[in-house]
């Protein structure tokens, strides 16, 4: 960048020099997200505090023809906020105010940098909460959640971020400030808000959101079953759904995860168990016990070895802690891991998990599974050592095969982490060139210069080659 000093001076004039990060050491904080296998250093990071400042920064970036990328708290898992072509990262951490809480209308207005869990904490004493709960909710920001259309363990019953956002304020890629949707449920015209949600920061920069708050359920019942095999646990999941029960959450861990968790935290899980299944019911307490009995029966029908019932909230927290500690425990098994995020129809779970085990064996790369079984959203955790180039190559083949299996059974390649950099090569597995061309058309409406978060989502000629597919001859998406 020829006139970096000039750019920095102009950025400092907008947000104050204290909020412009330029020194290489501090910039490394912004070189990656949670998918640490991808790294790219931005030229400069700015931390605005108002929508007007964001708008001014975007206009400046346009004048200088420099890429700009919004960033929340960097907990993403697909490399979606990397400055792959350098440029300005607009870090929204200082735009972290809850602007309004309107309990009577069950709404809140938040800035994008508000940490997900803090919104729930702000309203929980009044008996409300914000439903989308990604596993990173203690750290991730609502702006990032909107960009990725994040899910979480409770999406089975409550849906994803898109189901909970009513209105958005966005700085468009040319620096205009436009509102979409509103504080009411229906607004006339195309649902542009709905298209912006999940656009991975490529349509503009969200500076405000109006979100739904839900009333906390009257009660919970949480139970944990230990199964001999993952097949039996998977079939139990299907039986629960077939019985007409929609739990708030249905989470599973497989043998390798159980072992790792047990060795790290000693929850008392048998080391030879095939699977642990956590079921949570919520809602009105009257009648809930009979559902617990139904689930108990289903568990027993599938040779469940042991069932643990949460007697109180402390017990419930303990069960959830064993699930949420899984990722930490896996750090002990290998220096690095990549978490995949495929989704398959629930009934395909046993087959897909068997295929994953075969893939693991074929490439001699260990894979552990901890996932949202109720949604069919699997998280195979591919364990490796990035210092070994041969392993890295095999890991790449493993990823391709796993996602190919997901696509083959009618599933998709990402349920909640987004495409970002990580999965753009795999988009042709599920979308035709025509499907992708339409997405590119829409992107060009929102982001004609391509300066807003470039180099993400769309496959390249190399992607098609990698999958052994013919490169489409008309305008290649992501050109």
């Amino acid at each position, binding site marked *: 960048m020829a006139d970096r000093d000039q750019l920095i001076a102009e950025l400092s004039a907008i947000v104050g020099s204290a909020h412009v990060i330029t020194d290489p050491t501090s910039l490394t904080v912004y070189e990656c997200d949670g998918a640490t296998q991808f790294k790219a250093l931005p030229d400069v990071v700015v931390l605005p505090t108002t929508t007007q400042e964001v708008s001014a920064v975007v206009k400046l970036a346009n004048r200088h023809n420099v890429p700009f990328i919004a960033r929340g708290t960097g907990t993403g898992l697909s490399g979606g906020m990397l400055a792959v072509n350098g440029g300005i990262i607009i870090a929204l951490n200082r735009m972290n105010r809850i602007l309004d809480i*309107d309990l*009577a*209308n*069950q*709404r809140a207005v938040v800035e994008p940098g508000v940490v997900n869990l803090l919104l729930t904490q702000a309203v929980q004493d009044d008996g409300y909460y914000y439903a989308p709960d990604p596993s990173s909710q203690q750290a991730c920001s609502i702006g990032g959640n909107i960009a990725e*259309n994040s899910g979480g363990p409770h999406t089975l019953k409550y849906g*994803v971020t*898109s189901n909970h956002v009513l209105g958005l304020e966005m700085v468009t890629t040319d620096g205009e400030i*436009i*509102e*979409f949707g509103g504080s*009411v*449920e*229906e*607004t*006339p*015209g*195309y*649902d*542009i808000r*709905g*298209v912006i*949600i*999940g*656009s991975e920061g490529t349509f503009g920069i969200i500076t405000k959101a109006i979100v739904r708050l839900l*009333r*906390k*359920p009257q009660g919970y019942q949480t139970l944990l079953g230990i199964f001999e095999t993952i097949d039996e646990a998977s079939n139990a999941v299907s039986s629960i*759904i*077939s*019985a*007409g029960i*929609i739990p708030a959450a249905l989470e599973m861990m497989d043998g390798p995860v159980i072992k790792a968790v047990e060795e790290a935290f000693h929850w008392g899980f048998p080391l030879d168990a095939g699977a642990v299944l956590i079921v949570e019911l919520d*809602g*009105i307490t*009257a*009648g809930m016990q*009979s559902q617990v009995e139904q689930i108990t029966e289903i568990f027993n029908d599938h040779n469940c070895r042991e069932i643990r019932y949460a007697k109180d909230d402390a017990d419930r927290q303990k069960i959830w802690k064993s699930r949420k500690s899984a990722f930490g425990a896996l750090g002990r098994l290998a220096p690095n891991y990549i978490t995949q995020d495929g*989704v398959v129809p629930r*009934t395909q779970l046993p087959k897909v998990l068997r295929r994953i085990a075969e893939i693991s064996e074929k490439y001699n790369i260990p894979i552990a599974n901890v996932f949202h079984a109720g*949604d*069919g959203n699997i998280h195979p955790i591919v364990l490796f050592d990035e210092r070994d180039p041969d392993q890295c190559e095999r890991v790449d083949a493993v990823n391709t095969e796993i996602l190919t299996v997901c696509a083959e059974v009618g*599933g*998709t390649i*990402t*349920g*909640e982490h987004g*495409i970002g950099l990580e*999965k753009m090569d795999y*988009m042709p597995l*599920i*979308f035709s060139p*025509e*499907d*992708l061309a*339409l*997405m590119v*058309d*829409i992107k060009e*409406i929102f982001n004609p210069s391509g300066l807003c978060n470039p180099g993400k989502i769309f496959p390249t000629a190399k992607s098609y080659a990698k999958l052994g597919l013919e490169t489409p001859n008309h305008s290649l998406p992501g050109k």
Partner: protein
Amino acid sequence: MPISNPLRYDLNQIVGEAGVLPDDHLNRYQMDGFVPQAVVAPSSTHEIQDVLYYAAEQELSVIPAGNGTKLGIGNLPKKVDLVLSTSRLNQVLEYEPADLTLIVQSGMRLAALQAKLAEHRQYLPLDPPYGDQATIGGITATNSSGSSRLRYGSTRDFVLGMHAVQSSGVVVKSGGRTVKNVAGYDLNKLYIGSFGTLGIITEVAFKLQPLPEIERTVLLTCKEIGQVVNTALEIASSQLLPIFLNLFVNGVPFTEIAEPCLLIGLDGQPETVEWQIDQVGLAAKQNGAIGVGVYEATSQRDIRMSMRSFPEGGWASPIVMSKASLRVTDIEGFIHAALATGNDLRCLAQVMGLMGNGIVYVALSGFPNGDIPAESVAGALAKLREAATNVGGNFIVESAPVEVKRQIDVWGPVGRSFDLMKQIKAKLDPIGLLNPGRFVGGI
């Protein structure tokens, strides 16, 4: 028999005689006085493409439709040539009950689908107006939903993926068939509620719900509207989980109820429903209700059907139907504005409010001598719109006589995002083939 009409002849060539509606049925598809030149029902995506190529070549407009129940919604059309009905694309394509998802062709009627799903004790929890006749594609294209959106969400919340044919004939898939999916842009949202202006939806993937064990409706009547509103808002902010909280003023269709009232839908296991009925009873008492109890429908039509048919007599009668979307705390003020409108126009103003969602339907009917005074109605609607927009809400006119529509924009202001909408329309339908003029801002 020789066919004298060249359009008919050409269409017969494309979709076969069975796919072209007899001319004496065309009136059923009239939109604001415009009668289409032909109604064509292709039996495959291929035929849809061919109809679109033909229409583009002949410069004929194409109005996508399912069973035609919502063709009345929109600004006056610019041009009505062909109605393209999906009614012959009416099969379930994939259904695995244990997945609780399905893929269905757009022309299938919701009622037929529900019957199929009921065999597995499942359903799609949407109950839009004319839910017995409406098709999946029409419901999706109009983002139509009914009372149960309070508990289960609207069409937008249930669509997982779809296939649509663009006006160029290109078939495009968006989303997928799994309950979670964030691969690529969520273009489903573009088509949902686009009123056929962006493409012809051919198949839709939905997530489903298990049928509840039981369902009960509680009826609660009060002297004052304010008491009904307060009870509804109290229930909406409680831990109860009603399917719907519908307020009626000036009558509930197909019942004798005349007082302001609230119908509360409850479902689930018997114990869960019983407990909620008791709680509703307590809330009713505290708010001074004059009557409360489980409602037993007296006519053959069940109570859900009666809400789907609001107002009694349907939209076809000389009537003005409108719909406001508001914050729930603004509903009461708006209802009073609606009733004042009825007084001003010396007509009957009936109100159905989906209290948990802030959706308020206002039906104006019973005008003196059966004449709708277009100018004063248009003026009154503008005032009513102001009452909604002043508090951050929206107001659309879903049905009105042509003379009224000439004087108003049925959708109301769209705001600064309109420019993006125009660009989206231009990109997806560059020749303006699909449903021209009907949607917001004349799109």
